[in-house]
């Protein structure tokens, strides 16, 4: 794993020592090369973990997430070039350093064996994200957004620290490779109920669960494009990954402790999808759609069947790519009109036809059109929740319908119809933007040819 971590750390001296006209080229190229190294981890011959040392390992769950993380760094750098073009050189280098630091912590989080090390790195990802949101965001609300983000996550994760330490006292080690072999059932008592809650709340806040999701629209909307991309694509999946890892230790209480959270998620996905239909702010719409998709993942993880785990993993990867692509598209609108209001930039198909093609593909994958991996994820989750309880099919069906509604609403408002007269002088699409969308879409489309690599460890 060091073959990925050390080059990522070395991206920081690369940034600081590059010449002025080479910083973007250097960092994008080398981060792209690092992502190609991580692709070799996808070759998992058995269900056991691969590449492990005492501290880092990768298994069929963390390998796709790792590949997504490393794939996203060059995309983030490409997306940030425009809004940083007017800043002084040192601030550009600082921004890239923050992104690289975040990347390093994320890679180490996804490959950590020891759960306390996972916790420390999980918290460590908060600091660069906070700096990116509050320092480089655009509106005054970014300060409040940063505070909400930091404190919601910390309030949830401090009990997790205490819970992890008490589990370590009980079982002697928190090394994940060991725990999966001598796992014992948790006896049923009040203190174990609180242990379950303490373990899960951190990840529930991060996912986010419907009642605790207030930080997400704020943070996503106020962050600059790279911040939004990494938040939507990876940081939410940290919650899902953590839940998938820690539920192995928390049986059999999950069978009855999960009910409140299942209800909140099932109801919340309908609520947040419906809110999307009423949004005027484009980024806010994409943020709420993230909450809705992640609610599906929470339902899948809490049901704990092999098919639902497959659906959760596939949905995480698919949603990461789709959501990040939607934020890039919204940002291309924002850079031209300097406003996030949807109706201010409509009828773009006449003006920017190629971008309209990307908008179409992104909206289609967002509403889980076959044969994309979004559909595979959602379908597995719907099927496994149907087998858990027949009534959920009503809610799931309603959710799929409303998702289709708001995705098409977003597509039609921004692309179709007559364009407004005040935007007929916008710049045409840059090659960089088209390349960005292509790099998002190509893995998404190619994965639908071989989805078994993202189906996780229950395949």
């Amino acid at each position, binding site marked *: 794993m060091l073959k990925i971590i050390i080059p990522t750390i070395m991206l920081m001296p690369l940034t600081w020592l590059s010449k002025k006209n080479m910083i973007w080229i250097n960092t994008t190229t080398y981060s792209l090369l690092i992502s190609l190294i991580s692709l070799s981890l996808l070759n998992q011959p058995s269900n056991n973990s691969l590449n492990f040392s005492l501290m880092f390992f990768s298994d069929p769950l963390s390998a796709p997430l790792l590949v997504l993380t490393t794939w996203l760094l060059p995309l983030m750098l490409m997306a940030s070039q425009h809004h940083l073009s007017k800043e002084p050189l040192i601030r550009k280098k600082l921004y890239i350093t923050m992104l690289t630091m975040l990347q390093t912590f994320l890679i180490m989080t996804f490959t950590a064996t020891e759960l306390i090390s996972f916790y420390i*790195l999980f*918290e*460590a990802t*908060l600091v660069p994200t906070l700096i990116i949101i*509050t320092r480089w965001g655009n509106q005054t609300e970014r300060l409040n957004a940063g505070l909400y983000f*930091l404190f919601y996550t910390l309030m949830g994760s401090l009990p997790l620290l*205490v819970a992890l*330490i008490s589990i370590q006292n009980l079982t002697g080690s928190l090394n994940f490779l060991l725990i999966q072999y001598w796992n014992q059932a948790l006896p049923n008592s009040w203190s174990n109920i609180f242990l379950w809650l303490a373990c899960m709340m951190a990840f529930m806040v991060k996912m986010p669960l419907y009642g605790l999701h207030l930080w997400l629209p704020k943070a996503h909307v106020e962050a600059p494009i790279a911040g939004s991309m990494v938040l939507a694509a990876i940081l939410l999946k940290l919650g899902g990954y953590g839940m998938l890892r820690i539920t192995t230790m928390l049986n059999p209480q999950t069978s009855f402790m999960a009910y409140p959270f299942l209800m909140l998620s099932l109801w919340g996905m309908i609520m947040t999808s419906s809110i999307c239909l009423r949004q005027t702010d484009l980024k806010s719409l994409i943020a709420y759609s993230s909450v809705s998709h992640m609610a599906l993942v929470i339902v899948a993880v809490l049901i704990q069947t092999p098919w639902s785990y497959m659906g959760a993993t596939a949905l995480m990867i698919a949603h990461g790519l789709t959501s990040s692509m939607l934020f890039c598209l919204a940002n291309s609108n924002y850079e031209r009109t300097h406003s996030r209001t949807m109706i201010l930039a409509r009828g773009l198909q006449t003006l920017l036809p190629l971008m309209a093609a990307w908008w179409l593909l992104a909206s289609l994958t967002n509403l889980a059109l076959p044969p994309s991996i979004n559909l595979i994820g959602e379908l597995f989750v719907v099927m496994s929740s149907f087998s858990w309880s027949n009534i959920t099919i009503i809610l799931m069906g309603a959710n799929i319908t409303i998702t289709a509604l708001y995705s098409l609403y977003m597509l039609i408002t921004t692309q179709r119809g007559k364009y407004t007269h005040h935007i007929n002088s916008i710049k045409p699409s840059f090659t960089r933007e088209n390349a960005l969308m292509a790099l998002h879409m190509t893995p998404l489309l190619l994965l639908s040819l071989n989805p078994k690599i993202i189906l996780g460890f229950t395949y």
Partner: protein
Amino acid sequence: MNPLIFTTILMTVLLGTMIVMMSSHWLMIWIGFEMNLLAIIPILMKKYNPRTMEASTKYFLTQATASMLLMMAIIINLMHSGQWTITKVFNPTASIIMTSALAMKLGLTPFHFWVPEVTQGISLTSGLILLTWQKLAPMSILYQISPSINLNILLTMAVLSILVGGWGGLNQTQLRKIMAYSSIAHMGWMTAVLVYSPTLTMLNMLIYIMMTLTMFMLFIQSSSTTTLSLSHTWNKTPLTTTLILITLLSMGGLPPLSGFMPKWMIIQELTKNSSIILPTLMAIMALLNLYFYMRLTYSTSLTMFPSTNNMKMKWQFETKQITLLPPLIVMSSLLLPLTPMLSILD
């Protein structure tokens, strides 16, 4: 002040603390405390104005009361054990009185009222000595009598200190008062784990001293005592803003900075001793501290408040050269990977 006299007085302060830390006779310890107190008064009053006089008087009165209580505890101990050696305290009453006296010296709740007022009234350098060096002597006595301290009283004082340190600092804009409340909260963390593992108290003291030294030196370098003047550092030395950000986040206890290490170790030690609600409560209350540190970082490094053109072109006096600053900054933020080395402290 005449440099020779200043050196003598400073040496007396050092000598006083050394006597406290290294004696085995209770009377010598009391003498050390008194020497320390009498010698630090002129240092607190380096600038001669009514504000510093008020601060020094308050400090003198509280510390003298604490020393008197300490003497009473020593005499009761003498009555019940018949000897002056410092081992454990042989009588519960003496133990309670001694704990209260040392809590008064440290600034634990409910004896914390002097800390913000005294720290605010003195200069930054004197405040630095007050909040770091002066804590060493009482803490060393607490370390030595730790087997006989009444757990209920100490834990109550610790938890209340963390609460007061968090809540009290929320309404402050003066930097010295913010540091004072942060000191109250950190003292609370240190004393909470004293009975379980005094080694961790010392670890927390060490890291707290490093972080407070760094913060004060960064304040001294930009000569700023209010949040408003701290928000002008982007103009004078832009690098200082990043360093203030890192050190403040470290004081708030965020991983991966070294301020997380004492909190993590303390939570681990308390959980091993089967108290689980207590460290959870303590950790959540430390978030209050983090809130006002975040507010400071917002005004200093992460935003640029609207300022008039006058403020953008400040007088550039000669840069103060603080030699110790870079290693302190490195130590107060990057020490977390060295946590496995803590086994050498046992």
